[in-house]
């Protein structure tokens, strides 16, 4: 316990919470609750850099605020809007059932935690949960991408995947310029914005958001 500083403890608590939210995203059968899990995860991850920095810095605080706003409110808002506009029914139809995908996610998390401690990490990172948390979140994102058929739930999977990558990027928070971070955020926002429009088009053209129907060419 003695090498533990309170900052690491708080960061670990938040990463733990993010891992719990992964489970909720995998286990919930309604689109709005997947979107909510993703949004809360975005907010939780947005808060981490402020805690890690220790002292107050304008740039970090601004970055965190933008991340929280974008991932916690703007993107989920866009997705909800797209859902309402396209009149999607809210039940998710999974290719792999909820319990198997939960178990897959849990297995992935355990493997991530076990593997991380074999990696040659810097001593200041080896006691945080950033790496296992990020690997687990990326894995969850993959499962959601592969095992769900609705376009919007796949978008949620993609965003959770991005959350995992963001978590990994926090390892380099001192050396990545914030320009890169803001570029990624902008990309995300534009991506989701475009997907919101595409979802509406898919719904009009195919009367469904089932991505399996998109594999057949039509006139």
């Amino acid at each position, binding site marked *: 316990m003695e090498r533990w500083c309170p900052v690491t403890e708080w960061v*670990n608590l938040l990463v733990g919470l993010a891992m719990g939210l992964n489970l909720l995203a995998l286990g919930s059968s309604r689109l709005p609750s997947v979107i909510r899990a993703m949004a809360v995860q975005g907010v939780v991850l947005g808060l981490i850099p402020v805690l890690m920095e220790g002292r107050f810095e304008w740039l970090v605080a601004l970055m965190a605020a933008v991340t929280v706003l974008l991932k916690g409110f703007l993107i989920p808002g866009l997705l909800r809007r797209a859902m309402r506009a396209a009149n999607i029914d809210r039940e998710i139809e999974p290719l792999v059932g*909820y319990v198997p995908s*939960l178990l897959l996610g849990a297995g992935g998390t*355990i493997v991530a*935690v076990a593997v991380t401690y074999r990696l040659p990490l810097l001593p200041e990172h080896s006691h945080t*949960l950033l790496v296992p948390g990020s690997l687990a979140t990326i894995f969850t994102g993959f499962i959601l991408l592969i095992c769900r058929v609705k376009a919007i739930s796949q978008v949620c999977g993609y965003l959770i995947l991005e959350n995992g990558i963001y978590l990994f990027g926090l390892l380099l928070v001192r050396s990545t310029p914030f320009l890169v971070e803001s570029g990624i955020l902008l990309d995300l926002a534009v991506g989701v914005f475009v997907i919101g429009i595409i979802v509406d088009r898919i719904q009009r053209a195919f009367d469904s958001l089932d991505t399996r129907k998109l594999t057949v060419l039509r006139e």
Partner: protein
Amino acid sequence: MNPLTISVELIFRLALWLLLAPLLPGIINRVKACVAGRKGPPVLQLYYDLARLWQKSVVMSTLASPGFIVGPAVAWVALTGAALLMPIGTANGALSFKGDVLLLIYLLALARFCTAWAALETGSAFEGMGAAREVSYAVLTEAALIAAVLSLSVQSGSSTLGTMLAPSAGPGAILLAAGLFAVLLAENCRVPFDDPNTHLELTMIHEAMALDHSGPPLAVILHGASMKLLLFAVLLSQAVLPIGKLPQPAAAAVLAGSVLAVTVGVGLVESLMARFAFRRVPLLLTVAFLLCLFALVLAWKGGAQ
């Protein structure tokens, strides 16, 4: 400590558990009434019910063996024993030894077995159905509880309840809180899993088992259920908050406050959520189990020395 102090402390502790337990269902009902805009029954309603039931006579089926009476009694004694094992604030359990957490889990399992046994004694298919449901959900809740206890044990490096529950749960605290809260709801047959108010035959679990009991055995079952609720609320509060590290009066106050918060939380969940369909319950319990398992994984690699 001389024997006199020990016995006085034991009696005080026993009185505390036995007398405070029936308060929790009253508080839950009051919260539900407030949210629904009703006046609701008095907070002390369960005490009146217990007193009334205690004076009534027992109606026994001609098929039932003495197990019909013995089951609830043994279950109640097991739950009281489990309650006495729990540390309160900074004070250790009345009986504290290495590995007492195993005894706690087994006492809870014994209580469940005896309730199910007494339910089967009536020979009615209905009670059998209730018992079957109770036991099949217990498979998952017990796994979650064991994972939670293991994570606490790994985190603190001890298998004594007093030492395990004293510090906070480390990086998995939030996961553990969510998982244990779901276990609390499932074990006490609260709303997303079972509706304690319903008497519709196809939906109830715990109520179905107690349908044929009357008089003092029913009172014992009801009191045992309220004690189990209090036990889980205390376990949840102490597992998540570092109560054992505070000075004694503050610890008692924080414990009382957080038990009250958990109780109000149960009432709010009950007012705001509908009961889940049966096929969805195992999914939710799996999530609870995995949350506790994640807490275990985090304790194993994240925070332990």
